[in-house]
């Protein structure tokens, strides 16, 4: 019931650990941008809605990337939102390219960086044939690892490079942001050398990294599990294994198990209900965030572009206007 450590922390550490100030600051920024809302409903109401939406994870919808990646909770919320919004893609069995997934991401976060989507696709495609089609679940789980553990993976890439080039792994690693760095492969000429690095040595370095890493990392025990199954492995082999590990998925807590990815009866029901309402009335209860960013038809691979992005935004804007009446009953 009580986790006593938090009571012993200094005030500022407690607030930082739970990102209280991040959200308070953001609440104030949002308030300044929405002054007309507070004249109508009052400040307390505004803050109530803001903090409730943070709890429910809907606060990240349509926000800027810097905010979306600001806290682990925001990242998990974004992953969840992405899954819930575009689950139907997976359900229909559509395979999409990296660029198309990127468009989907941009529907939820207009300035989502292409680089991150590319990195996620590299995990799925093992850094090969980057224009291949990917299934929704493959992309989703790879994206989850890449997005949630972004900083950690940067450091892992640096460590991997060092090991490959035979440097002493215990030197201090300064994570660099140059993304192309880990793409250089060992010179093809050295055919005698097996590909990748030795797993046990790699694990030692990663364990060390987890100890002093200030960003989130996967539980070290699970990393160990992944690495103990193999003798040697490549960087992308490692990331692929992480993304497919259901324990890591559970520890992260944003997405259900792979088997349940398409299974959400409550959502299905809600969707059916909404779809039934769509012909004729747009101003209906599109308050549900998931529904509002789902175009009424399944996104079509060919015609999927900025035009549909614009369309979805408009749908959202409309629902935003119409929720004001429904709010009364919810709060």
């Amino acid at each position, binding site marked *: 019931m009580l986790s006593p450590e938090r009571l012993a922390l200094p005030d500022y550490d407690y607030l930082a650990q739970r990102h209280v100030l991040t959200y308070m600051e953001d609440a104030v920024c949002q308030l300044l941008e929405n002054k007309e809302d507070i004249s109508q409903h009052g*400040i307390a109401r505004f803050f109530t*809605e803001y903090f409730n939406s943070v709890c429910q994870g809907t606060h990240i919808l349509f926000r800027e990337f810097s905010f979306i990646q600001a806290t682990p909770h925001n990242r998990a919320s974004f992953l969840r939102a992405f899954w819930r919004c575009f689950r139907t893609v997976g359900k229909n069995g559509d395979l999409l390219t990296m660029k198309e997934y990127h468009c989907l991401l941009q529907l939820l976060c207009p300035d989502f960086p292409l680089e991150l989507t590319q990195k996620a696709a590299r995990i799925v495609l093992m850094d090969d044939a980057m224009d291949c089609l990917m299934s929704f679940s493959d992309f989703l789980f790879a994206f989850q690892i890449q997005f949630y553990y972004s900083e950690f993976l940067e450091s892992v890439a640096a460590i991997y490079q060092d090991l490959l080039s035979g440097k002493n792994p215990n030197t201090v690693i300064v994570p660099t942001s140059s993304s192309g760095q880990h793409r250089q492969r060992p010179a093809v000429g050295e055919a005698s050398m097996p590909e990748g690095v030795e797993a046990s040595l790699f694990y030692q370095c990663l364990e060390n990294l987890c100890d002093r890493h200030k960003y989130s990392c996967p539980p070290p025990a699970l990393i160990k599990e992944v690495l103990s199954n193999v003798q040697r492995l490549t960087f992308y082999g490692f990331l692929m294994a992480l993304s497919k590990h259901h324990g890591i998925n559970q520890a992260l807590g944003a997405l259900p198990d792979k088997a349940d990815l398409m299974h959400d009866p409550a959502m299905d029901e809600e969707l059916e209900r909404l779809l039934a309402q769509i012909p004729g009335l747009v101003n209906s209860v599109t308050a549900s965030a998931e529904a509002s960013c789902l175009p009424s038809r399944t996104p079509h691979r060919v015609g999927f572009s900025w035009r549909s992005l614009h369309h979805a935004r408009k749908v959202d804007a409309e629902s935003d206007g119409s929720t004001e009446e429904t709010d009364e009953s919810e709060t």
Partner: protein
Amino acid sequence: MAAIPVPLPSVKMAAVEKRRSVVVTAANFTDGTRPSVSRAAATTESEEDFLRQVGVTDMLRAALLKVLEARPEEPISFLAHYFENMGLRSPANGGAGEPPGQLLLQQQRLGRALWHLRLAHYSQRTAFNNNVGVAYECLSASGRKKPGLDGRTYSELLKRICRDGEAPEEVVAPLLRKIQCRDHEAIPLGVFRTGMLTCFVLLEFVARAGALYRLLEDPALATADRCMGQAVLDTLEGALQASDSAAAPARYLEAGWRLGPDSLAQAMDRALVARRPSSPMTREEFLEKAAALFIAKVKPVG
């Protein structure tokens, strides 16, 4: 499903347009506060002024202090509740036009007091004591002839706490009988604090006893074996009794030892061996007996 309270600026143009068309009929709709326009010219200073003027600065400072005082496990949902309650209290919301009746006022005061009392868990004694003090003031400042808290209000508050604590009524009734006061009595702060604390401790005690019962329970029958239940209760009683004689730190240790997994397991083992067929024990009975052990320790008021 929650509304999206904070649309992105670029989305907002559309949102505002839409809102305009939706709310044309609303007479009091105030347009013209396009923040991006005013903000372009304004400096940070004027934003600070704005926040100060409308009371955001003070509001957030108070909220932050409450968070630090209570150190909740989930500060964000704590804040959501905090502001929600504030919104309910503010005169801008809900029937501010006419002065509320005496009864309604009383209910509001009780609600406010309860809210303060729940802000911090009782184990955080400083925060809890502060909140008890604030709650006491809320209830005392009744605006009637005499300030102060009477027994009737105090008893009602106790009942509300127990009711909201989801403990069965028969389980907590003996406690209420013990710590209630007469309706016309004036309640000093000390009595009030003890009453509140006892009440919250009992509720947690009952909740834990409930958890204990679930472990003993046969899921198919939804009852527990009587011998087992009794063995656990006896162990509990033994532990609580141990605390009568010795000095404080020693008795805590002894009670802890008696309730440790080893002692409990031994007692249950013995019960299992000596088991006779008997009627099963229901959850209500178990909770009632467990609570009785606790309540026996509570000193009656007055």
